[in-house]
């Protein structure tokens, strides 16, 4: 009997998710024993026409990482959706928009202006900008369209499962692959990670005092947390209460408060809203004036609370012509 085939594909991503597959280490041999890799642009050369030639269902699973911002990415993910019975959004970007999703805090025009005209290291005397079509030495060339905003994968195609994380830990990937091979997958639409908040799994949970009382919010950019003590108790914004568990608490163990890459904990539709609710509960202020002072110590709330999921949040993006201060580009 021939082995089932899987495909890996990337959209707007950094390559870290591909790295996670390599991080499977010797487990990769088990994977390769059990399946054939039919597509993996980072490691092997494939052309679009090869994929177009697949019979429907020939390749069982497509693991797609990265968010979607280019017309070409849409073409590819639609093609893979058409061919593969199971599509897995692999990693925070495909799941929720991820770090590239923070581009939804600005506009396409600002991005292009900065990239092609204002960047300090730039030398572009002719004012060149990317075009979707141009002619060079008599040849017609095409480039994909750069969209106005970033979208998570499930906004453009139907997604069967989500593997969260930036990147997903090798253990989570391995158990997902095993579940697919053994046919023990949970109901469609599931996030393949434990259904509880990170705090429940946190090694620092027992250092959390009975009641938290934050009088000032601190940032890891300007001070260093005490290792071995609950970050929230120290006044650092740790996304643990609103974030799904299953990451192996890698950041916490490296003295870095949770930044929320696993996405909302079950029951939290909007991670930023839930986290803001928690921060308000934990504050020490008891008058309107001191509440304002406490809120003033918070910096870049959108970037902090929606670091990995702005495109999948309720408001989806920033409206930059409002009274909000536009981000520094």
């Amino acid at each position: 009997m021939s082995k089932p085939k899987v495909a890996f594909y990337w959209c707007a991503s950094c390559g870290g998710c591909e790295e996670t597959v390599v991080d499977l280490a010797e487990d990769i041999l088990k994977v390769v024993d059990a399946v054939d890799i039919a597509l993996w642009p980072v490691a092997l050369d494939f052309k679009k026409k090869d994929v177009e030639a697949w019979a429907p269902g020939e390749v069982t699973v497509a693991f797609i990482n990265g968010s979607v911002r280019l017309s070409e990415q849409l073409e590819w993910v639609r093609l893979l959706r058409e061919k593969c019975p199971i599509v897995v959004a692999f990693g925070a970007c495909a799941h929720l928009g991820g770090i590239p999703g923070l581009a939804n805090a600005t506009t396409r025009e600002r991005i292009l202006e900065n990239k092609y005209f204002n960047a300090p290291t730039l030398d572009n005397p002719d004012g060149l900008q990317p075009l979707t079509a141009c002619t060079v030495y008599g040849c017609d060339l095409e480039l994909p369209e750069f969209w106005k905003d970033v979208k998570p994968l499930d906004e453009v195609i139907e997604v069967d499962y989500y593997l969260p994380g930036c990147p997903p830990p090798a253990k989570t990937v391995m158990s997902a692959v095993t579940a697919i091979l053994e046919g023990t997958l949970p109901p469609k639409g599931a996030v393949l990670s434990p259904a509880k908040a990170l705090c429940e799994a946190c090694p620092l949970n027992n250092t959390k005092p009975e009641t938290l009382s934050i009088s000032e919010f601190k940032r890891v950019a300007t001070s260093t947390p005490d290792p071995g003590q609950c970050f929230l108790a120290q006044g650092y914004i740790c996304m643990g209460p609103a974030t799904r568990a299953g990451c192996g608490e890698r950041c916490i163990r490296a003295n870095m408060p949770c930044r929320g890459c696993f996405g909302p904990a079950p029951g939290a539709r909007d991670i930023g809203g839930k986290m803001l609710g928690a921060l308000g509960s934990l504050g020490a202020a008891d008058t309107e004036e001191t509440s304002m002072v406490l809120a003033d110590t918070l910096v870049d709330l959108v970037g902090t609370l929606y670091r990995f999921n702005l495109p999948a949040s309720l408001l989806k993006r920033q409206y930059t012509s409002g009274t909000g201060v536009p981000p520094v580009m």
Partner: protein
Amino acid sequence: MPDQQFEPKIVGFLCRWCSYTGADLAGTSRIQYPSNIAPIKVMCSGRVDPTFVITAFADGADGVLIAGCHPGDCHYSVGNYKAMRRFPMLAKLLDQFGIERARLRLEWISASEGHLYADLVKSFSEEVRALGPLRWKQRIAPLCESVDIARSQAATV
């Protein structure tokens, strides 16, 4: 020029013990006030998860009012202090998203302050009318790529 045709849609989260009772009093006292507000009874202003407010704005509200017992009067002793601390944080977050701070109000209304509730709805409706419609989805639409979507129903997490 404010659009005279525009009727602001305001969502009000009113605490069951003080503010909702205050709103009831405004009604039973037959005080006239604009019908722009859709009051929602919550057990406490401290129960108002910022997600509720964000959802209201995302789904088309032009303004949101959170009203609870005066500080010190909370039925659950400290719920309204939570609302008090969340309010400036939430206003700051919404401001960064591009939703004007004046679209969100936090007020203390006791069960006996029906007139205050009516005055508040009047003044807040006028303020939001002057700001104009928010219509979040339409507002951001020019900044979003529209794609024919087959969004999975199961995909909501």
